[in-house]
Structures are given as C-alpha cells and as structure tokens.
C-alpha cells in the first residue's frame, strides 16, 4: 500500500484518494492544534476518527473541508493541493465536499427544503432540475413531514437530518460529519450512522468524527483513527488496504 506520507502517488491511484495528508500541522493564531498528521481516505471508504474532547476532531474536519489552511506538510483533497488553493478554486472544491457540522448553521427562517436545495442553487441548477432529487433526499433522511417547516422550528434530530440531506444534495465526493450523533439518542444516532454508511455505495469517501468509540460497532467495516492532543494514529490495522494492495 502507499504510505500516507508518500503523497505523490502514481497517477492511476490519484482518483482513489479523496484526502491525503502527510506531516500536516494546523492551528489558530499562535495555537497549534494539529501536529504532524498522516491520513488518507479513499472513495467508498468510511473513516471514523475518535478522540476525547479537545483532541482536535473539529479542527481536523475544518482542515479537510478547506476552512483551515495547513501550516506545514502536504495535503491533497479530491486531487487538489490544498496548501496552494486560490479563493475561487477553494470555493469550487468545497462544492464537492458535503459537511455536517456538530452544530449545523442554516438559513433558519427558510424551509428545510430550501436549505437542502441550497448547494444545488449555488451550483447553478434550476428548480425544475433539482426538485425531484431534493424530494428524494428528503424521503431518504425521513423528513417528509417537516420539509416545508422553517428550520428554526425543527427538533435537534430533524436539524441533523436536514444537515445530512444538505451535505448530500450536490452528490459530493467527500462527506465530512463532525460528531453527527452528539446529543442524539442511541436509536437516532444509529439510524443516522446507517444513513451515512449507505452513502459509501455511491462511491463517496466518508469521514466521521466522534467521541464515541462504540460507534464503530454500528458501522460496516470502518477504518478507525484515533486523534489525541492533535496527533492522529490508526486505531486498527488497515487489513482491507493490505488486501487491496
């Protein structure tokens, strides 16, 4: 297999990786939050990053969603060098990344439908073209009854579902979910994880962060990473990768 540090892999492997980090550090102001990260995620793979509070999980997701710029090391996201992206290229690349925040931001007064359709509107698609897709997504995440409700009226679970549907709307190549089950009941959390896991079938790479290590039990064949004090290590041997090699 290619070692994560070996970021300049041959061209035939480029499309398989949705994210590759080698020796990446990042932080806010003078504070260094992430140190010397080596990480890779492939299309069709579900990576679970577990760690305690303040381990740097959200910062790691910010890094992958291009909101945090690496200070050192090398980082590719969806084949692009994330350390040297101009603003427009960064925005274009972000449109290929679906992001579910721990506390998702919405247009609160707009309906769930309008929020879910927003990525498609940003991509320039017309209502007649995306209406069917958005309705399908609403059904997929189980929001039919609440589709026309303004988001501020929705429950925490419904808001999380809207965030998930919005993250999937533009058929992203990389899906990032930052503590998506936080605050949910065990049943709701498992349903959400099953929804996320199903997305592997469409070929997207999925990265989920959580404090809950038992979440791996609800996933089928996840690649588990452990993040602690800003350092990332594989939590189990990547047997499937060795098999793939």
């Amino acid at each position, binding site marked *: 297999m290619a070692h994560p540090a070996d970021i300049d892999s041959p061209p035939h492997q480029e499309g398989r990786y949705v994210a590759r980090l080698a020796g990446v550090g*990042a*932080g*806010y*102001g003078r504070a260094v939050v992430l140190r010397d990260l080596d990480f890779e995620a492939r299309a069709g793979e579900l990576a679970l990053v577990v760690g305690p509070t303040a381990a740097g999980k959200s910062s790691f997701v*910010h890094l992958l*969603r291009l*909101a*945090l*710029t690496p200070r050192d090391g090398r980082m590719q996201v969806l084949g692009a060098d994330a350390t040297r992206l101009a*603003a*427009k290229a*960064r*925005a*274009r*690349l*972000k*449109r*290929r*990344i679906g*992001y579910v*925040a721990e506390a998702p*931001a*919405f*247009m*609160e*007064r707009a309906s769930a439908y309008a*929020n879910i359709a*927003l*990525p498609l509107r*940003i991509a320039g698609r017309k209502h007649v073209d995306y209406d069917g897709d958005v309705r399908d997504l609403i059904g997929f995440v189980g929001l039919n009854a609440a589709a026309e409700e303004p988001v*501020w009226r929705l429950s925490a679970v419904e808001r999380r579902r809207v965030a998930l549907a*919005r993250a999937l709307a*533009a058929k992203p190549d990389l899906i990032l979910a930052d503590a998506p089950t936080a605050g949910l009941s065990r049943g709701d959390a498992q349903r959400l994880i099953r929804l996320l896991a199903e997305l592997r079938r469409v070929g997207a790479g999925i990265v989920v962060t959580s404090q809950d290590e038992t979440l791996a039990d609800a996933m089928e064949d996840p690649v588990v990473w452990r993040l602690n004090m800003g350092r990332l290590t594989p939590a189990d041997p990547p047997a499937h990768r060795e098999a793939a090699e």
Partner: protein
Amino acid sequence: MNRPGAERTLFWAMAIACFTAALACLAARAVDRAAIDVLRDRSGYLIVRVLAPEGDDGLNRAATALIGDPGIAAAEVMSPERAANLIEAWTGGAPPTGELPPLRLIEVTLAPDAPADASAARDLVRTLSDAGVTAEAIGPPDDPRADQAARLRQAALWGAGGLAGVMALIVALAARAFAGRRRDFVTVMADLGAERGDVSLRLSDEAGGVGFLAGLIGAGAAGAAGAALLSVVEPNGAWLAGLAPADVAPLIAAPLLAALAAGAGAHFAANALFARAARLG
C-alpha cells in the same frame, strides 16, 4: 426568533436618517434660493449716470435706448423721491429731497438671463454710446445683506451636505448591522462553496433594496413636511408654481443615496463575515 423586530428597528433607523438628511437638504435649498434672490437683486441692478448730452434730452434718449435693449428688463429715470428712499435704505438717513442736486440717474434692472457681472455694465455703456449718450454705470453700494446671504448660503449647503454625509454613514452602519444578522446565511454559503463576491452581492442587493425603501419613506415624509410648512407660509399655493427641479432634487436623491450607502455597508460587512466563515485560523 426576534429577527423581524430587530430588522424593523434597523429599517426605521434608516428611514429616520433619510428623513433628516432630506429635510436638511430641502431647508438648505430654501436658504440657497433666498440667498440667490438677494444676490440676483443686487447683481441685476445698476444705476446709469448720464454725462452728456445734458438736460432732459440726454436722460430721455438714454432711457429710450436702454428700454429697447433685450438684456434690460426695466429702465426708469430716478425721481428725487426715489433717490431719497434709496439713500435712506443704504445709509440709514434720508436727506430732504429739496437738498438733492439735479439728478441725471436711471435705474436699470437687467433681464434675468443677462450676465450680471462687470461685462453687463460695459455693454450698457456701449449701448448708450451707440445711441449718442455718454454715461457711466454704477453698481449698488456695498450691502451687508449680500455678504450675509452669501455666507448663509455656503453655511446651509455645507451644513446640509455634512449632515447628509453623517446620515449616509448611519444608513451604512444600519445596513452593516442588517448584514450582521445574516451571519448564519454567510456561514452556510461559505461552507457550501459559494464565492465571496456572490454572497456580498446578494447581501448588498438585499440591503440596497431595504435602503431604497427607507429612503423613499424618509424622502416622502420630508417632502410632506416641507410642503406643509410652505403651505403655512404661502397659503395660496404660489410656492407650488415656483418649484424648480433642483428644489425637489433632495427627495429624488435620498432613496438612491440611501440604497448606495446601505449596499456599501452591507457589502463590506458581508466580505468581513465571509472571510471569517471561509477561513478559520
């Protein structure tokens, strides 16, 4: 969800700022018109002293020549009583008319569209010379009212301009606060890969529309207040007939400038919000 209430407050802050600015500009324009009238009265007024031929013949010939000049609205031989009145107005003391020497003066009022400067006096002397009359043209004596009018006009225009600038700043700040209330929207758009220009354009468009509406309401209220005041001063409605386009310019400009100020305020706020949302650390 108290957004609508807070946004209503911002809207009315904009409208009141527009009302204040428009009313100040209307008042400045009224002062400007009054000052222009005073200055025009002075600058469009000359006194001709006939030097030759002597006697009534010279005076009559000069008056006839002046009345036929298209640049002159009126020319009238000055009577001793009129001279006494002018001396009283200009000096504060009236000499007995019997003490005045024989007058050879003609009061001239220039046509409104004639140039009211030194060339007017030269043209007038040339016209009289062509008619065989030797004369000199004299402007009215210094009048402190004219200096006051000029100073008042400047003060009114600068004052209204300054106040309008402050009000535009208030509108821009209100629009900035308005854009700040769209922080969630900006964050969402940044997260979803929208470009900064698109987001700031959308917010500045929205704020510009709000500013325009606030400007319309403010200007409408200022116009109504101005009309009510003029109706009290001139109940016969004569002021309406005398309105010039420049008089209502503040009412037309207020919504447009408010839209611009609000759009600019929201644009800068949106850019700052987007920069913070799109790039952490």
